[in-house]
């Protein structure tokens, strides 16, 4: 149970990034898949080089922001479609991540973890995606045992009180608060304005390029941070850990919006967090009882993608009913959705 909430928080943190790019800046940024793995890879590499965890996380956050800025640069300055620009950077990051890790995956070296962590190998020995995608019945049992001295807190603070949840909540809360505050500043308001009317912002002296770089940089910083935390939490980084993250993130954002109607902006940022936890919960239930209807772990991505299609389809039907746009996905599907 704790594991679900913890993973949900990490997923939620990642989805804040997706929320920023898709909902606030209104750009379908596909860099996310690469940035998530970049965050993980760089964080574990820096950590194993002897830096402490907060600094490693901070540096991987900056690297993620850099990747987002690169996507924005390709989009604005070289006039590459934002989808293609995202895919290009994602592809570049695949090779870069392999370079960073010097291989397809990189565990946190045992020596850098304090001796109190006897169960660390159990965690590190698992498939990196197991935590996120396969908390099925057999995995759930050992998870409980390890929960007492999880690795993340140990790595982050050097203590082992089993307070991962508290620590993760604090990190996520700080991120949400900072984002909320930022979006209320003059620059943040302008960024939100940019999402609804990019050309309009130019007539107030703010160049599109600057806002694109800011928006995508910020979004990918969150994704990268979340990737770093996930790698530290699960014990190692893997080059494929970001695969399909954009779809998962989008599903989480939409799930959050369904559960948490966005009346005020502050709630809008909380929605992905809640969505992340609920998503992990649903995932656990599906994994646990899904086998009865012949469900496999590998079907999850299909389900996630179908969920997004269903939400958009449902949104369109609603839109036609009310003639009032709710979902802003014009960047993907071209043309506004029933805007008045």
């Amino acid at each position, binding site marked *: 149970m704790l594991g679900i909430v913890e993973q949900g928080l990490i997923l939620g943190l990642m989805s804040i990034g997706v929320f920023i790019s898709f909902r606030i800046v209104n750009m379908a940024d596909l860099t996310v898949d690469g940035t998530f793995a970049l965050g993980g890879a760089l964080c574990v590499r820096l950590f194993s080089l002897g830096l402490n965890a907060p600094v490693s996380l901070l540096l991987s956050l900056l690297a993620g922001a850099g990747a987002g800025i690169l996507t924005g640069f390709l989009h604005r300055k070289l006039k590459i479609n934002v989808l293609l620009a995202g895919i290009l950077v994602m592809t570049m990051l695949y090779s870069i991540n392999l370079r960073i890790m010097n291989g397809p995956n990189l565990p946190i070296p045992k020596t850098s973890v304090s001796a109190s962590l006897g169960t660390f190998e159990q965690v590190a020995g698992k498939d990196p995606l197991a935590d996120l995608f396969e908390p099925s019945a057999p995995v759930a049992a050992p998870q409980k045992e390890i929960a007492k001295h999880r690795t993340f807190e140990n790595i982050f603070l050097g203590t082992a009180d089993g307070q991962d949840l508290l620590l993760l909540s604090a990190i996520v809360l700080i991120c949400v608060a900072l984002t909320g505050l930022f979006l209320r500043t003059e620059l943040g308001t302008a960024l*939100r304005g940019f999402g609804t009317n990019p050309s309009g912002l130019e*007539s107030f002296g703010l160049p599109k390029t600057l806002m694109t770089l800011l928006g995508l940089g910020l979004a990918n910083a969150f994704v990268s941070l979340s990737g770093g935390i996930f790698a530290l939490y699960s014990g190692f980084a893997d080059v494929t850990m970001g695969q399909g993250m954009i779809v998962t993130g989008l599903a989480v954002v939409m799930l959050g919006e369904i559960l948490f109607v966005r009346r005020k902006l502050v709630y809008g940022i909380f929605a992905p967090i809640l969505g992340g936890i609920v998503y992990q919960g649903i995932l656990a239930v599906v994994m646990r009882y899904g086998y009865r209807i012949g469900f496999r772990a590998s079907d999850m991505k299909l389900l996630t993608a179908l969920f997004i299609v269903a939400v958009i389809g449902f949104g369109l039907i609603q839109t036609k009913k009310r003639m009032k746009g709710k979902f802003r996905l014009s960047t993907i599907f071209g043309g506004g959705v029933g805007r008045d």
Partner: protein
Amino acid sequence: MGVWAVIKLSDVSVVYRKGEENEKCALKNATLQISQGDFVIIVGPNGAGKSTLMKVLLCELAPTVGTYYLNGKSMRGFSVTQVARWVGRVFQDPNSGIFPDLSILENLSIASKKGVRWLRFRSCPQKAVSLLSLLGLGLEKNLNTRAGDLSGGQKQALAMIMAIISDPKVLLLDEHTASLDPKSSVKVMELTRQINEQFGITVVMITHNMPFAEQYGNRKWKIEEGEVYEYEYRPPVCLTRSENPFPLVGDQRRCAPKCV
């Protein structure tokens, strides 16, 4: 003369697809001067070069030949965002001048500054709200309304207020009443007149609405096949300083002293 020329085009030509077979000269040797306080109406058929002229004035398009001076400064090499400091603009689409997903207050707060801004918390721009109350639409009472939920006329009115909050020298209007119903268009035109006459902001307006073209403005231009003719001229109408009922707007908004 003697009145400060806000906009000056000297021998400006714009050629599209220069050197190619289907080369098109959209603006031919335009030499114009617009003084402070002028209300210029531009009419002309589609494809005559009206929008090209507007693009030149907005620096979206650099003239192929000739120079565009704004405030006596050559604008060659300036970008849209740099020129935005002196120029306000409102276009045909009511959603293009505002930020539909943001509240009215947030819209005003974005508009009340020009250029790069930092991490200051946005404050309620008092001047903006008092300008908004001029409209008489009651928008100032519903500052938290989503701007996208306003009617077309209200959106255009808000867009015009947003365009003039931060003291532009010129307000460029490109068929800004075209998508409005007749009643709203008249309201928006009256607001345009008010902006010009009371605040002394130079207005350059493109329109296809001939009654408006006759009724408003002190200078009438016609563009045909890239050539600009002036067919009517009257001295601009402005208030003197003591008559300005809106001192919030600041002194620089007054017309030049020699203005009638």
